[in-house]
């Protein structure tokens, strides 16, 4: 299995994060649940989206940012974009709104599967890097594409575990290994993590971090699941660093063979 330099903290651009779990702010029942879940997760970075203000609800309603703890970094996304141009336009609006050059780049290829359009993603990545963005592209599990994104200047690569919101965990672990071998930037698995064991398995592969939204937000008890994910990410990372035993065909006894009474 690939071994990479084992760094203590997750480095994204100029930032160094202790928590390797990035959490999404979408799909919660309400903002208070979201806030409690974010705190329980121990996250230091959350994703947000850019959308039109609903002008029919003038001056009313709660503001998302009032429910995001102040010490947490915002990572705006380009969710909903199907072309590179749309993604670049959205990223510029996001930079103005958040005051950060970080962007989670999403160029989606298909409404049903929500799988990324990697061609559009690569094109947008090149354009955004030129404009000084710290690009975190959401991508497929293809190591060739991941390498091209790194070469285009992406700060990290974010391969999916399985489709957004599908909760199927890492369906292609071998490709995750290939990506870890192919790139030097941090690898953050994003999309499809459904429960704690999925998170631990992903971290045991040796990735640098995870991004989870639906798996927490739509759990029956999001705050509990956020805690579970926090522990799973830590456990998975520790197990990876500890170096697991190999899988063997036959058994080997754990107790000594000598000294048995006869």
């Amino acid at each position, binding site marked *: 299995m690939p071994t990479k330099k084992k760094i203590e903290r997750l480095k994204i651009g100029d930032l160094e994060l202790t928590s390797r779990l990035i959490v999404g*702010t*979408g799909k919660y029942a309400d903002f208070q649940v979201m806030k409690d879940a974010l705190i329980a997760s121990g996250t230091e970075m959350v994703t947000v*989206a*850019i*959308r039109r*203000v609903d002008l029919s609800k003038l001056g009313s309603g709660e503001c998302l*940012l009032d429910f995001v703890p102040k010490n947490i970094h915002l990572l*705006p996304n380009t969710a909903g974009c199907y072309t590179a141009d749309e993604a670049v336009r959205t990223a510029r*609006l996001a930079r103005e709104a958040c005051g950060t050059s970080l962007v989670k780049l999403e160029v989606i290829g298909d409404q049903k599967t929500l799988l990324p359009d990697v061609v559009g993603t690569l094109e947008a990545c090149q354009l955004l890097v030129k404009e000084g963005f710290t690009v975190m592209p959401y991508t497929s599990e293809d190591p060739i594409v991941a390498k091209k994104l790194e070469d285009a200047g992406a700060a990290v690569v974010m391969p999916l575990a399985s489709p957004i919101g599908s909760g199927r965990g890492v369906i292609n672990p071998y490709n995750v290994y290939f990506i870890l071998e192919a790139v030097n930037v941090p690898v953050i698995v994003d999309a499809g993590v459904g429960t704690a064991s999925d998170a631990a398995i992903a971290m045991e592969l040796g990735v640098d971090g995870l991004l989870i939204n639906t798996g927490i937000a739509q759990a029956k008890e999001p705050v509990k699941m956020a805690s579970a994910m926090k522990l799973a990410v830590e456990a998975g990372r520790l197990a990876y660093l500890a170096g697991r035993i190999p899988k063997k065909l036959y058994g080997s006894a754990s107790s000594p063979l000598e000294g048995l009474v006869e």
Partner: protein
Amino acid sequence: MKIKVNGEERQVASGLALASLLQDLKLSPSIVVVERNRRIIPRKEYSDTQLVDGDILEIVHLVGGG
């Protein structure tokens, strides 16, 4: 004069300043971002930006997302 805001046509006073439009819409300038004819207007320019007939505005803000 007629302008378009978030896809909808609006009749507004001639020479209306962007800052005044936001006030009429009860929107806090600090939490929105405004794109006018595909160009992002910096917040400090809201009072000095006079809208003209045919302007297309997109007023956006941060929402929850993954």
